[in-house]
């Protein structure tokens, strides 16, 4: 076995560029997923039955089908329906964002249901509407509780974003593939890719642990 260190050093800047794009996709998808997840999670427990059902269908569909298939649906199937090409970047973020939204919704639902019923009763008894009580009282408290599972979800999303390489989007995994196609350095490149992913996920878990600690003391 020979290990070509020079190849690692040469490829690293290119891979880091890819990692930058991975971070960008993940960050934007997380943002989209959080917004979707918050509304779907709240809809999931609202007293409006159609909203509740819609949210349940959304969650079931996105958790019950593979992300890879969802990416194909958005990148290949949707353009046929719309009769218009979908930009790979938009497709990547949309697929990852709405997929993550389903998981975040379940995290939100659990976080909200963990808040004592007395909080909602206190808010309502003061004349606040359900929406106001959710917004000012329940959701801010739920946020604190759900930081650890949200952190796990972000880490999962960062790793799953490697799937968008299949639509030719040049994030970290795709960059690795392209370099290997040129250099045949499978060992060196895949190891480098793995190390970069590991560095990113470790950084997120540290950050989440830090935020959790800070919020606990406040």
């Amino acid at each position, binding site marked *: 076995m020979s290990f070509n260190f020079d190849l690692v050093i040469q490829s690293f800047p290119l891979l880091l560029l890819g990692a930058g794009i991975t971070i960008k996709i993940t960050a934007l998808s997380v943002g989209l997923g959080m917004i979707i997840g918050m509304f779907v999670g709240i809809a999931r427990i609202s007293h409006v039955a159609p909203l509740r059902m819609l949210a349940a269908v959304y969650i079931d569909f996105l958790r019950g089908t593979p992300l890879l298939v969802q990416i194909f649906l958005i990148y290949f199937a949707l353009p046929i329906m719309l009769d218009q090409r979908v930009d790979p970047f938009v497709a990547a973020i949309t697929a990852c964002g709405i997929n993550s939204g389903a998981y975040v919704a379940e995290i939100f639902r659990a976080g909200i249901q963990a808040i*004592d019923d*007395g*909080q909602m*009763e*206190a*808010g*309502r*008894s*003061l*004349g*606040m*509407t359900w929406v*106001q009580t959710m917004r*000012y*009282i329940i959701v*801010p*408290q739920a946020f*604190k509780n759900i930081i650890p599972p949200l952190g796990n979800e972000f880490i999962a999303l960062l790793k799953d974003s490697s799937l968008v390489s299949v639509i030719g989007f040049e994030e970290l995994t795709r960059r690795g593939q392209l370099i290997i196609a040129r250099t045949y350095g499978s060992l060196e490149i895949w190891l480098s890719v793995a190390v970069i992913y590991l560095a990113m996920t470790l950084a997120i878990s540290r950050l989440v642990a830090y935020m959790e600690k800070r919020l606990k003391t406040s």
Partner: protein
Amino acid sequence: MIDIKDLRKSFEDHEVLKGINLHINPKEVVVIIGPSGSGKSTLLRCMNMLEVPTSGKVVVDGIELNGEANINKAREEIGMVFQRFNLFPHMTVLENITLAPMKVRKISKEEAEKTAMELLNQVGLADKAEAYPPQLSGGQQQRVAIARALAMKPKVMLFDEPTSALDPEMVKEVLDVMKSLANKGMTMAIVTHEMGFAREVGDRLLFVDEGQIIEQGPPKDVFDNPKEERTKLFFSKIL
């Protein structure tokens, strides 16, 4: 002020309230007592629709409690104090008190804070304005909860066993606040086990058992000369 007609409430097939009729006058202090499971807390919680009755009518301050809009409007006039305080733990004491007046009554932050500080003074906790609820004792938390309810300038105050979750040495500080509120002419409905307080502060005592008002009258009369067997039995167990 509060008018209740043939109020019934069932949980699945268990009927907790079996046709309650009750009229509470302005400035009246009504104390509701009874064994646990008698339906007294459910009755109180029907007065602001935290518990939705199976049938019957509840009118508070001229507003019939049906439909979301009416209920929200009526709740602005009905303050509620809970057994477990239910303060908002992520907000300071001051924020707890100013939130609803600002969001519901739409008054300015300055004005809400001014009122809040006056109320905190009344309940003897002006120095705790910037504290968070978990930093306070049970008695202090309950006094903040009373101030929070009063900040909406309600016309009626409901108390659901306000001292039952307190350590014994903190009961008096809360009862004192309630007493001064009664003296100022607040209309109050109080579910409690504090018989001494009921006798001293109540204008009317209601004995509730098995979902019905068994006996009512001036506290002194009911305590000293209970007419119903069930009332006598209850007193024989607790006094």
